[in-house]
């Protein structure tokens, strides 16, 4: 395979090691041996030793959430996410990418999002139209919120409006490149999308990335590619917390107990865990569930929901079980993707709110 020597070394280090098995959110719910870093590495090490890189092996590479729980767990410092992404690109170059992945890649090329949809909800369009066309601060909603979690996008806008700050949202927002980066890794296509987005976003002083997945590519992958992004990038949770701490948002304490689902990207890749907790502390009581902060358990995402919906139900249910065991009243998310997958299997005896919904309630 035309992957880096570092990736080959990681594959050989991981192929006989199971020490991160217990934290793999996919393997833990499927019970399938193939769903862990060791299994992916073993199969790929065999490819390095003459086994064909088949569609079957590649399909398993796409069953990884890229959540980096294994990376966080590795006492030696190996990063299975890196070789997983590298092999996705390798598979594309060899024409063995699964058809359902190719379909999403084609969708990104033709519509700017992996879901192949172009129309925003009327409610979201109205909210965006209500904002000034120009401002120094851009709220970047991202494809998941715009296409699949309109309610989240609308509430994010409504919350920032409450702070009486000047900001805008683009009706035709460029694709950040996060979805292509997820599906193909460091491909030329990914760079092209990111470069195009940077050109559009360059005029803003501040970009508030609503989706941690977008924040991550802005802050990490763009730099790796050498793509200059003139604007300062802030996470939505970080920005909202600033608004609360500066008194621009003054939520009242609700008589509720919250437990926060740390998005894996936010907690592990961007190392942001406290801001959301400070927001929730301003709005009520907080509890913690099993494995939180940087140890968080990924609850699912919308891209994998396209081709592994049954597994996404299981990952979300497993996280609900963790949340329920805290006896908190509300599970709070900070990722539109996790909000949607958790919402699909929400139990009757616990509430699910996005973090902006919590603050909006506190402002009522």
């Amino acid at each position, binding site marked *: 395979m035309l992957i880096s020597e570092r990736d080959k070394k990681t594959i050989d*280090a*991981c*192929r*006989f*090691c*199971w*020490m*991160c*098995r*217990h*934290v793999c959110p996919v393997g*833990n719910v499927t*019970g*399938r*041996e*193939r769903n862990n870093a060791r*299994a992916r590495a*073993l*199969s790929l*090490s*065999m490819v390095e*030793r*003459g*086994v064909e890189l*088949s569609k*079957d*092996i590649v*399909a*398993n590479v796409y069953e990884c959430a890229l959540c980096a729980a294994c990376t966080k*767990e*590795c*006492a*030696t410092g*190996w990063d299975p996410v890196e070789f997983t992404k590298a092999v996705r690109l390798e598979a594309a170059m060899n024409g063995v990418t699964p058809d359902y992945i190719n379909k999403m890649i084609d969708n990104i090329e033709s519509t700017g999002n992996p879901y192949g949809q172009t129309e925003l909800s009327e409610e979201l369009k109205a909210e965006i139209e209500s904002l000034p066309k120009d401002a120094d601060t851009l709220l970047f909603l991202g494809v998941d919120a715009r296409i699949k979690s309109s309610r989240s996008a609308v509430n994010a806008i409504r919350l920032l409006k409450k702070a009486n700050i000047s900001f805008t949202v683009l009706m035709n927002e460029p694709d950040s490149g996060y979805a292509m980066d997820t599906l193909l890794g460091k491909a030329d296509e990914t760079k092209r999308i990111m470069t195009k987005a940077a050109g559009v976003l360059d005029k803003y002083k501040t970009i508030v990335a609503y989706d941690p997945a977008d924040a991550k590519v802005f802050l990490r992958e763009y730099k790796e590619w050498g793509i200059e992004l003139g604007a300062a990038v802030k996470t939505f949770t970080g920005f909202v917390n600033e608004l609360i701490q500066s008194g621009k948002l003054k939520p009242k304490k609700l008589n509720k107990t919250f437990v926060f689902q740390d998005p894996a990207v936010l907690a592990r890749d961007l190392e942001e865990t406290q801001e959301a907790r400070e927001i929730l502390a301003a709005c009520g009581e907080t509890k913690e569930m*099993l494995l939180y902060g940087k140890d968080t358990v990924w609850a699912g995402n919308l891209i994998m929901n396209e081709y592994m919906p*049954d597994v996404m139900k299981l990952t979300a249910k497993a996280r609900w079980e963790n949340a329920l*065991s805290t006896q908190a009243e509300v599970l709070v998310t900070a990722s539109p993707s996790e909000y949607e997958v958790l919402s699909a299997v929400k139990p009757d005896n616990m509430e699910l709110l996005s973090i902006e919904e919590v603050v909006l309630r506190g402002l009522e």
Partner: protein
Amino acid sequence: MQQNEFLFDMILSELEDAVGRENCSIREIDKLTHTVDYFWLSRMWADRGKRMPEADFIVSPKDAKETSAVLKIANYYKIPVTTWGGGAGSQGGALPVAGGILLDTKRMNKIHEINEDSMYVECGTGAIYKHVEWAVNEKGYSTMHYPSSLNCSTVGGFLAHRGIGVVSTKYGKIDDMVLQMEVVLPNGDIIYTSPVPKHAAGPDLNQIFIGSEGTLGVITKAQMRMYVQPEVRKFRAFLFKNLTDAFRAGRELLTKIKPSVMRLYDEAETISIIKKIVGVERKGAFMNFALEGVAEIVEIEEKILLNTMTKYGAEDLGSEYGEKWWEEKITFFYPGHIMDLPQMFGTMDTVATYSNIEKIYWAMKEAIETNFPMARFIAHFSHWYEWGCMIYDRFIVDNPPQDPHEALRLHNQIWNTGVRAALANGGVVNDHHGVGIKLGRLMKEQYGPAMQVFEALKKQLDPNGIMNPYKLGL
């Protein structure tokens, strides 16, 4: 497995009917990832680009009922069944060397009950032990089973191979930690062992199936003991002049108190591992203890420990080493922290009485170093009883043959030599990793005519010989 295409499809459809289509796979990726466990030979074989034997069907039943259905199908068609939990065993016990059905237990991972009255957790045997530990931790308890493979091995895997954790001296081995088990017999019957582990209602059914490595059935559910978390856990390390003094001190200590951790390292391991991990550069025999439980009692135990160690001339090295070891007790087993390919290595753990243990150590060391000058031999003694203790002895060959057949031959010669030295001096084939395909050939050498008891059980329970063929010497 030699089957024609039509019959293969017929069997596949029956298995799909038993466990659901999504839980029965003939995919390449599922076969491939169930071919290599922690057994050095399987790793070497794969490393050399050779394919290990593959199962024909990978099935994942969700409970005893589905397991029963699978075993009935297997018995009818006389198809081998190999049970796979975490696949982290070092003896090749989970390798589907005869093809057929690979029964992966990890869907049987439910925590069914945490019984605080009777202090046990009932779980499916496919549960990762770390998950069981987390579940009881949330209630303020612990399983007190902390092996190096805690993160990746299943409850069933530990039971099948008689596993052990680092605090075993106080809390026991896995076979001391079980109350009742649910077992699916090879004919598909679902049975339950006695509701309690201590009784006079005949022999102990638990102990027939614990350590049977999937040759007599499949353990599908187990009630595992849990313990109150200790108020304190205190460490103390000592340096003895030699192993003999350390053995005497350890033996005497266990007539008075029960530490949770007792780990004695031979000189070679004292120098190489302890120096590397915790920075000690001293010759002698390093020994690390942990005492735990109610604070007042531990305080008294600590005095007894110090007095006993002083009596045998041990140098007190304080608590820092032990605390660091505790933090890193699993780190030892990540890549880069432990032996790995291209090295050849193996842990020839055995257990014996105090009368024999030091004799075995020297006999195994001499046998390995004399017959295989290319091999290094290191050892520690990490699980202690009132009557004896175990040796965790390892051989390491830095540059084994590149040819896989030659490497296999040398590997097995070293093992034969080491284990036979243990057996000749009062040891056993293995202490806590099991037998698998690695050591099956040596079982008769240990048991002699007693082996017929196991063979009779096998013949009665598994007359078609479908359960995990070529393992355990059965």
